């Protein structure tokens, strides 16, 4: 332990002298960063919004279809089958066709890559600031926390906007294809669950996207971060 070898009490530290960064400050700083880099944040957010909107659209379409099959009668079932849904009239359940499932999976995958890319850029752009932070005594965990808070804010806002947009679009689409019945028969509770599911997915994508670059940045030697070219 360094305390034993130190002669002048250079390294003696007690509880009062801990390194830290209060949560409220971290939050303020993250919000300020987002505001200062507003367009940049929008770009990061836009790929997230698109991915979540698409997911929400598919989910709510399914909700509408389920509502139609359960309460609407058999004529809807045949229309839905024609449109590519897997309809089970006996159980009253509807699932998407395998093709559609593939498209959802692929598009989410592509969006994840897009989000990671955007987050990677937003971290590498700030290597220098990370270097300064480290020179001033910031711990790795403080830097990691700042980026995670930022990603969480982007994640929640972006995912909520995306999910809302996707649901709105699904309703318009349902209205267009099946008339007012689509909106009357759909279970709002199911739609709400879909909204939560899509938002949570988007939030998770945002966090996953920032995790790798943020860990990379937090572990950097200060000199490397300060002199990093971007």
């Amino acid at each position: 332990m360094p305390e034993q070898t130190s002669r002048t009490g250079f390294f003696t530290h007690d509880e009062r002298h801990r390194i830290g960064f209060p949560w409220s400050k971290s939050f303020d700083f993250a919000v300020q960063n987002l505001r200062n880099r507003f367009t940049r944040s929008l770009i990061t957010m836009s790929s997230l919004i698109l991915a979540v909107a698409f997911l929400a659209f598919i989910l709510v379409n399914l909700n509408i279809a389920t509502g139609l099959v359960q309460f609407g009668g058999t004529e809807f079932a045949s229309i839905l089958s024609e449109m590519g849904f897997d309809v089970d009239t006996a159980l009253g359940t509807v699932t998407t066709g395998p093709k559609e499932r593939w498209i959802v999976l692929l598009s989410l995958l592509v969006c994840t890559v897009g989000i990671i890319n955007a987050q990677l850029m937003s971290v590498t752009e700030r290597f220098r600031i990370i270097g300064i932070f480290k020179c001033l005594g910031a711990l790795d965990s403080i830097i990691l926390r700042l980026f995670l808070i930022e990603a969480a804010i982007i994640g929640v806002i972006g995912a909520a906007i995306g999910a809302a947009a996707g649901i709105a679009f699904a309703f318009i689409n349902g209205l267009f294809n099946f008339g007012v019945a689509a909106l009357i028969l759909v279970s709002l509770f199911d739609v709400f669950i879909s909204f939560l599911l899509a938002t949570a997915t988007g939030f998770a994508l945002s966090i996953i996207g920032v995790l790798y670059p943020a860990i990379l940045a937090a572990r950097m030697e200060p000199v490397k971060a300060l002199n990093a070219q971007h």
Partner: protein
Amino acid sequence: MEEKQIIVRVEGVKKTFKMGKQHVHALRGVNLEIYTGEYLSIMGSSGSGKTTLFNMIGGLDKPTEGKVFIDEVDISQLDAYELAWLRNRKIGYIFQTFNIIPTLTALENVTLPMTFAGMHHEAATEKGLELLDLVGLGTRHQHKPLELSGGQQQRVAIARALANDPAIILADEPTGNLDQRTGEEAIELLRTLCRERGVTIITATHDYKMLNVSDRVVWVKDGRVEKVEKRDELSISLGTIGEKER
């Protein structure tokens, strides 16, 4: 002279960088002792290894070989937390490119290290204003770095370096991006801090203006310490150096 206490000891430090397949020897074995409260200048042309040495002393980079002791503690033995603590409380850094955070105001820049150190907001603000007053920027604390001149930005950086009352201030080319007059002001400020607060000041520089205020000068060439001169020895050779500069 009273007994001098060693605050920084550099022992056989070597640093090799890999540039593709080539190995560049930035430092080839440096031994150096720095005393508490002195004003030490590390002089050398660019590429001599002085910035590398500076980074080693400040714990910003790790030597390939050899050891750096700060107050008899080998800093390579410190864990991440202790290293952060060292950077936060014991060492203040000043850079050629100022390195203040552009999105924060002058005051926020100065209080940031205090926040890391766990100081309360009000106390930090009060001390931050005090420090900005000290460097002559008391009235401009709400300005963002881009609204300040180079000399003023460097003064913000000096105030920030002082935030947690460090024992050592490391200044890498502090006057490199400043003109003659503001450079002199910055040097004068550092000198005053050294005298009045007993802060050990270590600068890496090739600015000959620094020589007048330094207690000792370490000349670095090709990754080695060429010679160490005290100020009284310096004044003799200084004339000729000044001549060459002009």
